[in-house]
């Protein structure tokens, strides 16, 4: 790791001010990817502005079926939130299987989606739920937010402050973990929402998280694992690496979709 200065922001305004003051600074929200990258000297921000201690960024708010999760809320809090579990168990289950206990107590939902690792779980959850991503400047849909491998619609210095979504009628998440990293080799989030069926896939796409539209169409007719049994997932746009070929991932997309549907009931 190169030398860096650590700052703990007290408020969003405070954080933005600090970020503006340091051209080569970066927001830190758990650091589960950033710190590891810095240790390998692959990233060298001069200043780290820690968002985890900003009170307005933390916590889960439920109003009717509307769920809002503060960006600095750690995964463990999402996983263990009883009221959220009653409303949308799939997102709690997803959060409860990210990394290991250490990661789940340090890593945050905002940090995860802002990083948009192509094998992270939350991007599938947000895209699958059709969530709204709220920043210090605007709101946008998950479809607009996730733009590619480690790429989002966030502008320079823009900060995710919260995510919000309507609890779906049904939802499920199934992932197949990379045997080494335990990141998703393929993870599929399925949701039956007020605005339609959504199937979001992480870990498999060569351009990051994506929606499997043929499955969405098939499930719109009949919400059951059998509805997607005939679908052959196209491997041409999928990732291929030493752990999983594109063909293997294509198979996993279907198998995990079926299992996500089964778990969603």
């Amino acid at each position, binding site marked *: 790791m190169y030398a860096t200065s650590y700052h703990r922001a007290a408020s969003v305004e405070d954080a933005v001010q600090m970020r503006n003051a340091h051209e080569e600074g970066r927001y830190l929200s758990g650091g589960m990817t950033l710190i590891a990258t810095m240790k*390998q*000297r692959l990233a060298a921000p001069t200043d780290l502005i820690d968002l985890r201690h900003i009170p307005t960024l933390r916590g889960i708010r439920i109003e009717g079926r509307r769920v809002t999760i503060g960006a600095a809320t750690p995964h463990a809090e999402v996983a263990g939130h009883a009221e959220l579990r009653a409303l949308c168990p799939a997102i709690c289950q997803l959060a409860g299987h990210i990394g290991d206990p250490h990661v789940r107590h340090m890593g945050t939902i905002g940090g995860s989606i802002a990083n948009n690792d192509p094998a992270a779980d939350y991007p599938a959850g947000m895209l699958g739920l059709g969530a709204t991503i709220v920043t210090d400047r605007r709101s946008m849909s998950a479809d607009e937010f996730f733009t590619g491998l480690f790429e989002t619609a966030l502008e320079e210095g823009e900060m995710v402050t919260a995510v919000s979504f309507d609890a779906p009628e049904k939802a499920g998440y199934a992932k197949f973990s990379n045997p*080494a990293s335990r990141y998703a080799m393929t993870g599929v989030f399925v949701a039956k929402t007020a605005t339609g069926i959504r199937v979001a896939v992480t870990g498999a796409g060569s351009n990051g998280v994506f929606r499997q539209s043929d499955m969405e169409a098939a499930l719109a007719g009949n919400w059951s694992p059998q509805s997607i049994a005939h679908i052959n997932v196209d491997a041409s746009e999928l990732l291929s690496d030493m*752990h999983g070929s594109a063909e293997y991932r294509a*198979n996993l997309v279907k198998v995990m979709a079926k299992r996500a549907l089964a778990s969603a009931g």
Partner: protein
Amino acid sequence: MGVEGIGARVARKEDKRFLTGKGRYTDDMTVPGMKFAYFVRSPHAHAKITNIDVSAAKAMPGVIDVLDGNQLLDDGIGNLICGWMIHSKDGSPMKMGAWRPLAVDTVRYVGDAVAIVVADSSAEARDAAEAVVVDYQELPVVTDTAAAMAPGAPQIHPEAPNNLIYDWEIGDGSAVDQAIASAAHVTEIEIHNNRLSPNPMEPRATLGIYDSAEDHYTCYTTSQNPHVARLVMSAFYNVAPENKLRVIAPDVGGGFGSKIYIYPEEIVCLWASKKTNVPVKWVSDRTEAFLTDAHGRDHLSKVKMAFDADNRITALKVDTVANLGAYMSLFSSAVPTYLYATLLSGQYAIPAIHANVRTVYTNTVPVDAYRGAGRPEATYLLERTMETAARELGVSPAELRRKNFIRTFPYQTPVIMNYDAGDYEASLNAAMQAADWAGFEARRAEAEARGKKRGIGMSCYIEACGIAPSQAVGSLGAGVGLWESAEVRVNAVGTIEVLTGSHSHGQGHETTFAQLVAGRLGVPIESINIVHGDTDKVQMGMGTYGSRSGAVGMSAVVKALDKVEAKAKKIAAHLMEADEQDIVIENGEVKVAGTDKALPWFQVALAAYTAHNLPSGMEPGLKETAFYDPANFTFPAGCYIAEVEVDPETGKTEIVQFVAADDFGNIINPLIVEGQVHGGLAQGIGQALLENVQYDSNGQLLTASFMDYAMPRADDLPSFKLSHQNTPCPSNPLGIKGCGEAGAIGSPPALMNAITDAIGHNRLTMPATPMKVWQALQTAH
């Protein structure tokens, strides 16, 4: 056998300090004026060094000095060596290419050390290392074992044409060919033994301290054998004469073989300490560990096994190519030869065996012994072949093995080893019973109904441990003897220090060695301290590897204890005016047998040191040294059974049960033995299911972190069912065989036999990752 003696489940004495963070590892050592090193390493797998410019680096903040290989050469520091001479079948010696501690003109693998930066902090050293400008002229690369000898392959060392290090053979080739020609059945199979990274929890580290006033060097290092390190560094690398070099291996956090060897970093830090006149510490990070710790395995073999009409094995023919990496590491040459091919008889009476082994250079990390070292490769080859043969012959794999077991001992194999004791059927029966082998088909049917493919597989392993009789290994090319030393020092108040040349880096010697003494003398285990790992304290030793510390190291302690007891008895007989022959030592007392006359142990010790009333002519003191040279290897053996369920949709294998039935001879501490077996099984299961070192075609290591190198975790493993059978080893005084490597040796073939049973064919190599199993299932139809 007392509550703390041999056979007792004594909790490990050393665990308190390990579990409370009080261990003292090399990186915990701090001395005044200490500075920090960072190594400049080659980013290329094969390249000429055309220029090294250190001027910018030297000007960086905090930098003491930047040193390169030419300076090392100028100071007469020698090449790293391989200490076991192997001759090719044409009589020529192995082709050892030069391994400079810091590369001078050529780098041969990614991670090859080029220069050392010494600075006030490790961060400054690393910053400056990035400012060292090395000009490379890239050369073509070969990393693949099978491709290394191909026509036109890049040449790695001028000394070794076609990258061939040696072409060695063992056994009677013509007898084998005749047997194959007249066989009723011949099973043929190709075997790939995957390359592994050892990954001990503590990365390597070293602290080199040069004292200019005394012209003396101290080397703290993460070593499994500090005395061997001192010997090699003084005799071959010209770092310092032995009496001017102290090597200390304090607490060491695991080794699995990878810390046997002398690496460039120890040598360079000692030399750099003299050059810079400051103590120099280097600690590997995890990436450097992947890039530079000696790897294990990496064999490709072709096998033919011949059977007569009665399904008895008549011959075994093996042709192996083993990858030794870019340089020959310290014991690398012995692993695919005398630690491998000599075990190819397994547990079976095979009249004729022939093995041809060729070792090759590639642009990869050097390969050397890793937990099991040669014996896992032999066991995997043999047990996969036996399983395949049973399927081809249409007989039960258990019955095929049973029919071919060696049943009378001693048994001379056609490949050097003379097995002294064993009862292979006892372990087979115990394992099959524990696994409910008979009930498997019902379980398979039940799994099928759930959509899972269930399979069962066994492995009957044997290994040669207690390494090793010095004369025998000397005749086979070893550069050292493989005895062990012990010193038993009884203090004046009766407490005891045992100094051993064995080295504990997780094996629990501080407990087991103390159990031996506590049991013999009947004194509390707390009154015994085990001292190891410091060449200034222990005179000489050969260290810990090859499951040798119990069989060889503790046998040396037995010999020293015999001498201590003999002297104590003489003193006690004199004090109690009794006949020496009537004296017994038990329960902390020295007694006259059959009487109520007794002296407490401490009183006899005190008498030895006050020397007021000793037998005429006796020297004062109570301290004895012994060297023990084993008469034979020991031969732990056993039977492992794995039962798995494969998810056909994802290819994921779940181990639903794993049974290990081991014959380790007598057992010192069942608790520690079980821990050793558990750890070994985890490593073997890791090899079979998860672990694999992969390079790309440019020689870049793709699996250079735990993000890509899959280590086994607790949830990858089942609860193990263990049992022990016991045929005591006749060749050492304790009747023990060793247990450190068995789990890693016996488990991979059991698992692969089970998975291939589940998927219904044999076209699967280790590691059986979900993707590979899924792919195998796609091609099955």
